């Protein structure tokens, strides 16, 4: 950006200005690092306004006025140099020592990192370009402090969820705003080709983000796409191929013999403890009941024993010589091994110093771990940028994308979900249909038959709740996809320039920008007519189309001038944002087999359409002032009027002030050689969050989807509250940033304190008023914490460079205020409660297992009048009602410290980079684990930890006696697992073929590389995904994948 800017300045400032010729000089400016010509470097005659810029070959010519022979050559990222003018000069520029002083994209402009008053972090193309990430947001993890990222689903093409500096809201969204090339982006993140991205900047505080007003409170992710570079055309081809496998281990489950043993004990315990039989009678009854419970002999894999003989009466154990006819893993049956992925990128960029272009094409084809799931993406982008004259420039960029995602439509807790059924199925159940001898069965054509659990010759069906179900069969027979078409345009013109000849208009610019994002998501879901859920209805098909069109139109007036050491930069602007979403969907049942269209269906299942509109009108302003590159001040202001609120309350103002003191530029530190840069910064501001989840939160509405037969019907759905408005976020940031030892060491630390006020909550009504509550701005919450980054080069020689970086973030969250009526919102085992962290676990505490009976024991206590524990009243009980009334606050998912450790090694042409992430502290309630320790259905299985169960009086253990669907058992902290983990996120190794070889074949650069994503994960429980969500839960969901790729990149 700044490169372009300087080029632009150089181009118009100095070429036009004529004569008084005294001495003609010419020369070439070359980079010392790679010997390549520097294009667009500014060459100025010191003490005059004479100057020029180097052309595409790095060459320049100018004429020095008499008495002025000193030239100053400057280029962004290079050390400025002053040399005496002479003919045919060759000038070497060396890299700026302040190279760490990156230029970053911020709201409505750019800023230098060292002088920026706000908090922003940056990920550049080189940090992610070789990684096999389909959604660029994945590359933020570990590269940016203060950002938490979920693992995301393993479904190819899905994006992870991110949170910037904690959790800004309870009922409204906590998601950041995405801005692509300066315009808020409403499309799907996976529609953007990561290879097109130049940088991603996360704006974390108010000074950085307040200019995004009502949408900035949860942070802003600025995505900037690649622009052309002046000079000869660069052609770049990159292809990768890769293979994926699951990144998280499976849960460790019992085997068939162990399952039967545990099941037998569960039955025996029921007879003995619940139905009062004597032990021997209970044992006999359990042996006899096994067959009925487990689906009869067709479902008995042990063909050498009948169900009633499988337990040896003498030992009470499964007979050790039981021979199993099958042992089929449902998960293995539905997973692909080494799911294939290939990706191809092609781009050309180049241009003159006036007009630059970039074209790119991309193709990605990725198979998912789960059979039949996949993602394909085609992308194309052109970015053109022209400085038409020295006072007029224009730019246009367009991006097109088409993608198709094939997925399994059963997810979450649905029992039809393969991640539930295939992973946690009773190990006795075969995948493929078995005859009475246990042999796999085939149809007449020789095709293998799935076991759907339907009635067998003995009249029995598969036991449990999953009748007519096969994980593999459903995947094969059903179908679901989403096709997305996206088109984006960004265009703008700018008038005005910085040339002195513009007189009083010097530095005044007026820009108009327009950006639009169109996307269409076409969704199809087909459920087959032969088996499962929709068999009875003859199959079901649903087709839905969501069309999103949003545009932003802004007009920006800027003025920047320097007066001696005073530099002023003022922005004034207006912006209009307009969003329209149109939905159309229909479904039919009774289909013609094989035709996945609505037309042949006979019966209407559903037909619906609606439109949503959302608009914001804004005025914005910012003033940057800097004195002698030492003191920087920024103030910004934005007023938003949002259609989400009642017209009298729809306007809000957001603002920030920030200061940066670049102390290293003070005289007293000028001579400190080891200090390159040191700056202190502080900012405070107020941002807003209008993302209430609905566009019409204030209105009292009748939902019109309640037609009664042929008569239209409306059903009251919300209560009016005209006062409902933004959540506000007061955001304080304090930071120190330093660069030392000739840029060998870089360190920064920041403190933040974000307080959400007027937080949107569902203000509870008495349920008997017919409403659960209404939306109101009543709560407060605080997120505060620290972020630090240390990076440096322990070794840096001409051939060898070793870089190490450590990032860490600490987050403290506290709910300060909820409503007077309910200072606690309970959601299962989690509470949102005043004085506690968001989603604190509140549950019963296990006190072990009664050695006499094998019953779960709990801690309980007596309460005072306020419902708090009376000190010293704790006792142990097996009474679950008492334990249920004696719950404990047991922490939350929020870690004590999380961050990353990374390293990069460069030796000559060889580079190796390793990125690892860590998270310490916090807890996860693993409901997957809990559901497979305390079984509800005989169609699911036990975790191996259940083998520690109590078996007989005297056993000392932490796992109670076995039981099925023991409704009297409470959820306890037994299933709260330490959330700490360490992950090797990525290892990339690349090798640049020697120039000598590639030049011979006429190429510029050739690089071969290999990259592995999600290499390894170390957690406290096998199977648990510690990054499933921010609330500390787990679910039956698509497991993330690890990907191994190899690639080739060619440039010429």
């Amino acid at each position, binding site marked *: 950006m700044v490169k372009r800017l300087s080029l632009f300045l150089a181009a118009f400032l100095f070429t036009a200005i004529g004569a008084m010729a005294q001495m003609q000089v010419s020369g070439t400016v070359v980079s010392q690092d790679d010997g390549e010509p520097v294009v667009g470097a500014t060459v100025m005659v010191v003490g005059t306004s004479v100057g020029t810029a180097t052309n595409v070959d790095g060459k320049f010519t100018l004429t020095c006025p008499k008495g002025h022979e000193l030239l100053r050559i400057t280029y962004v990222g290079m050390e400025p140099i002053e040399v005496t003018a002479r003919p045919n000069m060759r000038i070497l520029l060396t890299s700026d020592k302040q190279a760490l002083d990156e230029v970053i994209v911020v709201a409505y402009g750019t800023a230098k990192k060292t002088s920026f008053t706000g908090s922003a972090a940056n990920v550049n193309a080189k940090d992610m370009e070789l990684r096999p990430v389909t959604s660029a947001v994945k590359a933020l993890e570990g590269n940016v402090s203060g950002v938490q990222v979920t693992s995301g689903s393993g479904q190819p093409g899905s994006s992870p969820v991110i949170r910037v500096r904690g959790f800004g809201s309870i009922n409204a969204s906590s998601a950041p705003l995405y801005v692509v090339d300066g315009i808020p982006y409403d499309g799907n993140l996976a529609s953007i080709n990561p290879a097109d991205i130049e940088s991603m900047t996360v704006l974390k505080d108010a000074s950085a983000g307040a200019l995004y007003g009502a949408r900035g409170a949860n942070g802003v992710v600025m995505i900037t796409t690649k622009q052309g570079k002046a000079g000869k055309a660069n052609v770049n081809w990159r292809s990768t191929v890769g293979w994926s496998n699951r990144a998280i281990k499976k849960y460790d489950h019992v085997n068939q013999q162990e399952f039967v043993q545990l099941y037998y004990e569960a039955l025996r315990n029921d007879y003995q403890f619940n139905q009062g039989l004597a032990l021997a009678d209970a044992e006999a009854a359990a042996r006899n009941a096994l067959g009925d419970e487990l689906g009869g002999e067709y479902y008995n894999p042990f063909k050498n024993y009948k169900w009633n003989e499988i337990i040896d009466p003498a030992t009470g154990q499964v007979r050790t010589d039981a021979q199993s006819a099958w042992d089929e893993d449902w998960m293995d049956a539905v997973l692909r091994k080494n799911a294939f992925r290939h990706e191809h990128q092609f781009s050309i960029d180049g241009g003159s110093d006036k007009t630059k272009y970039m074209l790119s094409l991309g193709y990605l084809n990725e198979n998912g771990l789960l059979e039949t799931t996949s993602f394909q993406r085609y992308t194309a982008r052109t970015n053109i940028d022209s400085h038409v004259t020295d006072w007029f420039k224009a730019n246009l960029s367009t991006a097109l994308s088409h993608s198709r995602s094939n997925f399994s439509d059963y997810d979450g807790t649905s029992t039809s979900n393969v991640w539930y059924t295939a992973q946690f199925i009773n190990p006795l159940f075969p995948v493929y249909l078995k005859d009475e001898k246990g042999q796999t069965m085939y149809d007449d054509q020789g095709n293998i038959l799935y076991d759907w659990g339907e009635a067998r010759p003995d009249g029995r069906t598969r036991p449990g709740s999953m009748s007519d179900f096969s994980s593999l069969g459903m995947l094969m027979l059903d179908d679901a996809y989403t096709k997305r078409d996206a088109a984006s345009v960004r265009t703008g013109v700018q008038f005005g320039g910085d040339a002195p000849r513009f007189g009083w208009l010097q530095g005044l610019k007026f820009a108009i920008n327009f950006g639009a994002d169109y996307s269409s998501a076409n969704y199809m879901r087909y459920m087959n007519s032969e088996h499962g859920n929709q068999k009875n*209805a003859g199959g079901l098909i649903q087709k839905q189309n969501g069309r999103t069109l949003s545009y932003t139109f802004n007009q920006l007036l800027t003025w920047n001038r320097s007066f001696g050491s005073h530099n002023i930069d003022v922005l004034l602007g*207006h912006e209009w944002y307009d969003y329209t979403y149109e939905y159309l969907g229909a479904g039919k049942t009774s289909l013609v087999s094989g035709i996945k269209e609505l037309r042949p269906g006979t019966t209407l299942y559903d037909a619906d359409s609606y439109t949503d509109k959302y608009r914001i009108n804004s005025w914005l302003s910012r003033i940057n002032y800097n004195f002698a590159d030492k003191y920087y001040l920024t103030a910004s202001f934005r007023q938003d009027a949002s259609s989400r609120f009642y017209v009298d309350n729809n306007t809000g103002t957001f603002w920030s002030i920030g200061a940066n003191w670049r102390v290293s530029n003070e005289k007293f530190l000028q001579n400190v050689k080891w200090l390159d840069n040191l700056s202190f910064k502080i900012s405070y501001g107020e941002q807003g969050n209008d993302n209430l989840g609905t566009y019409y939160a204030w*209105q009292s509405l009748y939902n019109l989807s309640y037609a009664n*037969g042929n008569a*239209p*019907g409306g059903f009251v759905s919300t209560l009016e509250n005209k006062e409902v408005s933004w959540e506000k976020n007061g955001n304080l940031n304090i930071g120190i940033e330093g660069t030392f030892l000739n840029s060998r060491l870089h360190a920064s630390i920041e403190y933040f304190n974000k307080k959400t006020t007027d937080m949107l909550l569902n203000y509870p009504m008495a349920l008997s008023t017919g409403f659960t509550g209404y939306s109101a701005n009543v709560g407060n919450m605080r997120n505060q914490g620290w972020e630090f980054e240390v990076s440096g080069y322990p070794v840096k020689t001409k051939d060898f460079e070793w870089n190490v970086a450590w990032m860490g973030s600490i987050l403290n969250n506290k709910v300060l205020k909820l409503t007077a009526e309910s200072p606690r919102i309970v959601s299962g085992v989690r509470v949102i409660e005043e004085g506690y962290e968001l989603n604190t676990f509140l549950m019963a505490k296990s006190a072990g297992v009664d050695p006499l009976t094998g019953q779960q024991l709990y801690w309980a206590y007596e309460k005072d009048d306020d419902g708090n524990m009376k000190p010293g009243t704790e006792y142990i009980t097996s009474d679950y009602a008492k334990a249920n009334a004696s719950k404990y606050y047991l922490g939350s998912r929020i870690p004590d410290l999380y961050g990353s450790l990374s390293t990069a090694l460069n030796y000559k042409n060889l580079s190796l980079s390793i990125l690892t992430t860590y998270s310490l502290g916090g807890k996860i309630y693993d409901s997957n684990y809990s559901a497979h320790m305390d079984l509800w259905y005989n169609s699911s299985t036990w975790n191996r930890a259940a083998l520690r169960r109590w078996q007989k009086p005297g056993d000392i253990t932490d796992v109670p006696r076995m039981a099925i669907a023991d409704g009297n058992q409470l959820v306890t902290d037994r299933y709260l697992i330490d959330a700490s983990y360490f992950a090797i996120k990525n290892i990339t190794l690349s090798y640049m073929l020697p120039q000598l070889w590639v030049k011979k074949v006429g190429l510029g650069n050739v690089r071969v590389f290999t990259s592995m994503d999600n290499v390894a994960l170390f957690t406290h429980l096998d199977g648990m995904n510690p990054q499933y969500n921010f609330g500390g839960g787990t679910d039956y969901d698509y497991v993330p994948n690890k990907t191994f790729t190899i690639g080739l990149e060619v440039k010429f």
Partner: protein
Amino acid sequence: MKNLFKYSFILMGMLVMAACSEDKLETQPTDSVSGTTLFSDAKAAMVPLNGLYRSMYTSGWSTTGNTHQCFGISAYNLAAEVMGDDFIMGAQGSGWFWFDAAYNVKSRFTSGAWRSYDLWYAHYTWIANVNYVIAAEETMGGATEDKNYVIGQAYAVRAYSYFMLAQWFSRTYKGHESEPCVPLYTEPTFKTTTGQPRSTVAQVYEQIDKDIEKALTLLKGTTLKNKSHLGYATALGIASRIALVKEDWANAKKYAEEAIAASGCAVGDVAAITGMNSVEYNDVMWGAKIQSDQAGMYASFFAHMDPVVAYAQRAPKQISIYLYQKMGEKDARRAWWNPAENYLQKKFSFSNAATWEGDYIWMRVEEMYFNAAEAACRLGDEATAKKHLTAVMSKRDAGYKCEKSGTALGKLTTDDTGSLLEEILIQKRIELWGEMGRTFDIRRLKQGFKRDSAHGWPSGLLLPNRPTTNPENYMWVLTIPQAEFDGNENMSVDKDQNNTKDE
């Protein structure tokens, strides 16, 4: 330079124009409509009324989970049915309604997914909806008949809703008049509305009586436009149910007889009505036509009843052998159950299983004959009682004759006395099996019951250690959902929660 100025000014002009679009900031949804537009006249007010009836057979809105057992009136009747003595769930299946049948829901009042929350929220939502309609009584335009039709229904729905709440959340009327019942609201809800304290049983029934009388006044002379609407005859039917609970036999008889006359319905032939899935039957007074795109699929009455598809396959619905054996040898209703399949029911089935169609029936004229018969019997008018009883029974069993007399009832529902009253009730149980919410009758009759495995009950539902034989027990008085206490400053869980135990 001149150009620069020129363009700048043009663009400045555009800037100002772009700013002139403030009115575009007032956006409206397209899938909803603001309430204020709906009550201007009686025709428009049919929209919220029809939406209300739709919610009475739609799942998904009344709870945060378990929606497949929460689909409005039919679900509540079925829950009350499985809690009784005649209607057996042969197996747990997927678990729907099993917890109701096992009396294992009261402790779950803190959850938004169980019966307490569902019933409470659903009925109070209906009340809130009609309170808006009633509030517009003075201002609503339109023809008088149209207005009476709208407002009258609103009162009838309010009476019905409070009546159901009173039966679920407190002990029966007679003898418990001064016990706490449910809070009363007769004004529309705004965000400033405060939660009310529990009124007494007597106060709630006073409101119910007022509402149903007002409804009858307004609805008399109006024409029923849709069988789902609570028209004049149906309101009379509700009035007779209310009177039975209040043991106001004279009114129960009067209203039931008037309902029969006003409904224009006739007792159906067993062959014609088997399936119980069409509101077109001549005996249906109140019910909802289910069209395929409005069907609940798995979350529907027939998904739980029809043994051929969906949930009922693994949770078969059977009649108690005790009750089955009370049927005469020639009783045509024997076709409704199959003794060869554990007395599996055949009475209810989808009209079209492939499209999930099957209408919901909430009141049949046969019930009115039984109500009138019971009331007449209680009043000592056995001739009229037998007349009404025979009106139904002659269509069930051509040779039916009843020589019984008297009003003696057993302590338990299975203790036979041989009285006429018992005969009326037995025939009503058979006739309305699966559709009436049997526990409501058990409770008002103050009988106990006992489930017996010899009658076909599975071991999980025998309730061996529960006080089912004590009609005064609290097993069937539901707990009030926690969400009520969370938002109601006039009710606290410590003082106002129902007895969470059985007795």
